[in-house]
């Protein structure tokens, strides 16, 4: 997918991606450049937080600020960035193992906190950086180096989880559809609240799903209503057709708005009391 030289110049770092040629993550990176370009965001005001895995290397390939954190810990760090400076644009990037296995706990709380950020879940159905072990999104028919007899656990569907956990924007896309993906990422960035973009991003080396997804991926019908949660859950969990587009969208107060409200209440309670005055009140 072509991206304008101007956009590339602005958002692409000098660091050469270490991904395998043909990796779905290239499509996500390109789409992210396009989304940032379309929104005209200043890279110095964007923070990209990642965990560990192939997707973990994502931030360093951009000119934005990056935080390459620990395996599964994308969300805690992103929360801290937002708590310190809500004006920054925050994009969190995690793999399927990152998000749903080791970071599964954080994923739930990030959704229900409704932090104003875009979460890009780069799902390649396995652990690729450690060379091909099963993940929570490993498909029933798939065998991996750690599940040579096939998976013994059920597949977890991240979009349905996010909806039930309280995310206010849930979309799915395919990394091979970079232009569409760029649109969805831009919408996710603009959405006020926690926005999940579940990206089917095939691993060309350990489990190539390009052909599978080319067959399965289908755009949501034109009359689809993303505000209907039950409908969204039905489409999200359909494993025959992998529906792409904005599956679910609603509005709730964001984390930042709630924190601001708390700050106002606290300031009202303490009426401009300085720390020194507060300390002096503790006189015997």
């Amino acid at each position, binding site marked *: 997918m072509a991206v304008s030289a101007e956009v590339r110049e602005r958002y692409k770092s000098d660091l050469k991606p270490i991904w395998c040629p043909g990796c779905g993550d290239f499509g996500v990176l390109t789409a992210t450049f396009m989304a940032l370009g379309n929104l005209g965001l200043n890279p*110095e005001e964007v923070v990209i937080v990642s965990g560990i895995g192939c997707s973990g290397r994502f931030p360093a390939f951009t000119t934005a600020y990056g935080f390459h954190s620990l395996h599964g810990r994308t969300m*805690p760090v992103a*929360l801290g960035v937002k*708590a*310190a400076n809500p004006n920054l644009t925050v994009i969190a990037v995690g793999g399927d193992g990152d998000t749903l296995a080791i970071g599964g706990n*954080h994923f739930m*709380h990030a959704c229900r906190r409704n932090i104003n950020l875009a979460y890009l879940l780069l799902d390649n159905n396995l652990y690729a950086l450690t060379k091909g072990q099963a993940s929570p999104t490993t498909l029933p028919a798939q065998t991996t180096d750690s599940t040579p007899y096939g998976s013994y656990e059920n597949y977890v569907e991240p979009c349905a989880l996010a909806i039930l956990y309280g995310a206010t924007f849930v979309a799915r896309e395919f990394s091979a559809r970079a232009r569409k993906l760029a649109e969805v990422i831009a919408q996710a960035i603009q959405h006020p609240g926690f926005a999940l973009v579940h990206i089917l991003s095939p691993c060309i080396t350990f489990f190539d799903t390009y052909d599978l997804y080319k067959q399965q991926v289908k755009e949501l019908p034109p009359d689809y209503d993303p505000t209907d949660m039950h409908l969204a859950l039905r489409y999200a969990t359909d494993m025959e057709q992998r529906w792409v587009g904005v599956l679910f969208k609603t509005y709730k107060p964001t984390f930042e708005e709630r924190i601001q409200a*708390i700050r106002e209440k606290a300031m009202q309670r303490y009426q401009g009391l300085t*720390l020194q005055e507060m300390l002096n009140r503790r*006189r015997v």
Partner: protein
Amino acid sequence: MPVNEFVVRVGGDTLEGGIIRTGEFLAHALARCGLEVFTFRTYPAEIKGGQAMIQVRTAEHPIYSHGDDVDILICFDEEAWEIHRQDFNPYGVLIYDSKFEPRNFPGTAVGYGFPFSEIAKIRLRNPVSKNMVILGVFSALFGLPKEVFEQLIRDYWGRRGEKVVSANITALNEGYEEGRKVEKRDQFRIEVRPMRDRLILSGNEAICYGAIAAGCKVFAGYPITPASDILEWMMEHLPHFGGTPLQVEDEITAIGTVLGASFTGAKAMTATSGPGFSLMTEFLGHAAMAEIPCVIADIQRAGPSTGMPTKSEQSDLYQAVFGGHGDVPRIVLAPSTVQGCFYVTVHAFNLAELCQSPVIILSDQSLAHRTETIPPIDLDKIILIDREVYDPIFHSENGDGYRRYRLTETGISPMAIPGQPGSYTAEGLEHDEFGHPNWDPENHMTMSEKRFRKLELALRYGEFYPGFEGFRWYGPRQADVGIIVWGSTAGAVREAIEMAEQNGISVAALHVSMLYPLHKEVVRRFITSMGRVLLPELNYTGQFAHLVRGETGLDVVSYTKVTGVPFKVREIYEAIKELAKETVAVR
């Protein structure tokens, strides 16, 4: 000295209610009589029920420990008497609920029984007012002016309305009249002294105030005994100071949030106890690798595992100093007093910012939840240090872009903050000066050296904060017995040295508050200047003793105890005496 100098302990089942409050009221009242106070408490790990106790020591001079023997014991029930009589001064006073008769009561002591439960339940029809009845009795028996308690009641319950205030004052008066009816047979009494300018705070509160004073803007935590009150305080107060406090889903999130916030330019901290700290160690390594300032307060409790959550221990030193995979530079500080909790927290933030490094505060349960009268704190006298922020004009690079991890003499590299020019990726992988992942063997050597070089700057922190030493030497330059001490044990040591000196023993002490990096030369000089060196600490394996031996190559005599409660002054004194005998014999 029975006038203005004694130890009071209140004990009873928490089902009775109000035990801790009785002690807290006593402490505040004594402080308002112009006296110094120092409290100590233990409470059950059960949700409801189980024995709790609070001890209040008072004196006209500064106090450093909660006292060994209980002079005035107040027992709500028989079980309390059975538990506490082992610490009871045989010449002391027992005030007890006459629903039971204390067995094995020493003939030399004085006992006063009152039907507290009956008075509260039947006469006052207000069972929860029993503790106020007891305070009334206390007031009458020992001459603590009743008005002091009345004012405390108004201050404490005023917001709840006149009805609550008057119910408590009625109970107080009822107790006072009861107390006046009995003939006083003991010598303990209170004489009001001129009011001193004092604050009354707990160790955990002092950490909170210290954090705000230092400029903390983001706090993240997860409930854990005995650190939860820091989280609660921050949740209530930090927003007022323009900050964001967060109760998050676990301790991993807490430290991750702190790092994200600090990366974004905010001073940030978390507070936890041993089990939570264990969860944080992976991120501790990341903070060291990516060079992100952060403050972690570990309020130690008895371990390992869930251990004894409400009991005190100094047993997280290994994990604070050595915890983590790979070589993780960090700074470890330990306060020993409530006042110290305030200043150590300020120093922790300063050092985190100065060295762009994680800083761990090692407090413990006994220090966290005791209250002390401390001199007022003047915030204008506090020095605040901020990290060196990257300035694209001032820090001109070589034309090849911003180097986040630029090699410098001190190891400190100017840090860019999101929103300003100089974007980079904070990197947990080993990296070069730009922050680009790098596995070159030479580079790993160079960068490890860079990160550890910062600890030398930490040792020079006194140049940035005049008066800070990281250690304090008490007593002569040379002595038969030396004591090295850290954390809350320092108080008992200070009083034990005084006792030893009075008994003609030649003794000195080195109180270390910066545990890591260690001022090795000072410790070495101390050890070689003393006949023998004792190192008392509340853990099983002698954790600081190990560190001192490793860092100095010199031996110390480790003296450890793991009973869940702090050392008594007498225990330390006896150990000094033993060691002095040996030293003299050798000489």
